[in-house]
């Protein structure tokens, strides 16, 4: 079985996002770039599955759509334990573009399980995984919080409104992964970092695709009114304000 993990390169989640002058883009000065948190959890789970020989996972490959400047993020995925990587050499302009590129990669290399994070922490689109599966005409399971292999058959747990479902689906399929898939993201050890240097990164040129959406500007979120403090000894005042001022209870 071959697993493909799609990774996105995003600002570290503690970053204070600043909008660049002219409001056309985000100011990337000083930003630390990391693997998108859900993609990192997907990778962790893929490696856990590979660690157990009975699962017969032969390889874990990561794929990323981005220019050469994003290579450190790919190396990090290799250091964590991915066997090899594919980089589609293009800026990731929109979900449609990225999904088109990854679908091409899957067509040429054939994978059994394709894992995508539920969203990227920068664009928050939640679209790429579903688009890949439709481009390939294969099933997708979304909001996946558990993935195991039982007797060679993938068994997934997905979250639904107010509950969970356990589902099976024949490979190949796309698993769109959320919290719960792995406990903690795996951290690269020194040995992994050394080994990552010699692991293969295949660079492929993008297929020609026109993005369907374009960001033309950014604005800051509306600021909130200053906090009104209530005495800790008198919480009844808070309840009164919520009832009569905010009118929310």
């Amino acid at each position, binding site marked *: 079985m071959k697993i493909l993990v799609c990774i996105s390169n995003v600002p570290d989640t503690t970053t204070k996002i600043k909008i660049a002058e002219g409001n056309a883009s985000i100011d990337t000065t000083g930003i630390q770039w990391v693997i998108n948190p859900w993609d990192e959890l997907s990778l962790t789970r893929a490696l856990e599955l590979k660690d157990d020989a009975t699962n017969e996972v032969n390889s874990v490959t990561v794929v990323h759509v981005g220019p050469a400047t994003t290579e450190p993020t790919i190396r990090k995925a290799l250091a964590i334990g991915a066997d090899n990587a594919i980089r589609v050499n293009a800026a990731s302009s929109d979900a449609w573009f990225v999904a088109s590129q990854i679908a091409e990669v899957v067509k040429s290399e054939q994978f059994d399980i394709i894992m995508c994070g539920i969203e990227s922490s920068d664009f928050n689109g939640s679209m790429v995984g579903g688009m890949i599966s439709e481009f390939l005409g294969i099933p997708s399971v979304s909001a996946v919080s558990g993935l195991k292999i039982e007797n060679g058959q993938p068994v997934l747990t997905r979250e639904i409104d107010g509950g969970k479902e356990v589902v099976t689906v024949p490979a190949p399929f796309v698993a769109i992964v959320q919290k719960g898939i792995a406990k903690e993201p795996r951290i690269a050890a020194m040995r992994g970092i050394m080994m990552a240097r010699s692991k293969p990164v295949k660079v492929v040129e993008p297929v020609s695709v026109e993005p369907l959406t374009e960001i033309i500007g950014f604005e800051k979120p509306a600021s909130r009114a200053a906090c009104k403090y*209530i005495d800790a000894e008198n919480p009844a005042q808070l309840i009164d304000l*919520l009832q009569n001022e905010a009118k929310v209870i």
Partner: protein
Amino acid sequence: MSVLVYTENWDGKFKKLSFELISYATGVAKMLNSTVTAVSIGKVDETELKKLGNYGANKIISVGNDQLNIIDNQAYASVLSEVALKENAKVIVISNNNTGKAIAPRLSVRLKAGVGSGISKLPLSLNPFTVYKRTYSGNAFAHVVIKSDVKILTLAQNSYDVVETPANATIESINASVDGSLLKTQVKDVQKQTGKIVLTDAEIVVSGGRGMKSPDNWAPLVELASLLGAATACSRPVSDEGWRPHEEHTGQTGKIIAPNLYIAVGISGATQHLAGVSSSKFIVAVNNDKDAPIFGSAQYGIVGDALKVLPKLVDAVKAIKK
């Protein structure tokens, strides 16, 4: 030409989310001088379908088919794309909930339609078609131009007010054919919480953080939630410690919620936590550290020990409920 809206049902019933979607679609249709067609898939009776007309749907298409009783994203996307083509839909509105996130990208590929996801406002302009979209987990909002002929918008839950706009809706029942080979996902087991308010649906949420000190201290928080008709939630360290189930984790990597009222008890308000709750209409913070960042996002705050303040809040709510 019409604005198409997919209204999900839960065991044959619509909920507030369905009416938010129609209200939003009606708003978009007004801008476009167009009409609203609502599509319902699965078994829903006529009385329930008629409710969609109260919020501006001019036409209601009900797709009944035994194969469609379970939501399968491939089959549903196939049905919706067929209806969209037949209705000549230029804008398609879907929820940004789990179902919507599974269907919208597939529909996008079928119709070559650009997606604006997690939308909370009407389009900023029609030419070019520009939407206002939450990005960077709520730390910046983008103006996104959708360039394709057909546009898909996924609406964030509890972000658009339900507006009653009675319309004389016609109901059309169709029996779409589903390619059986699409139905590959098999559900083996379902575990549903009963009697609990679904966190993403809740209008009030009471959430606990590390300031709660121990999983044994949750009783007053749960009581407060129950008195307010609220759902319970927690911060990441709390779910990581296993004090509460991970389904309750709200924050960037957990659930993104937008209730009318979010009460954060013993939560300091790290960037990642705020990313999951910043769209709440009102935030109340209870924390013993007066410099905790949560107070910067809250409209009401109590500086005090969570475990001492909670019982008093419970009493105060009981007093007004009398």
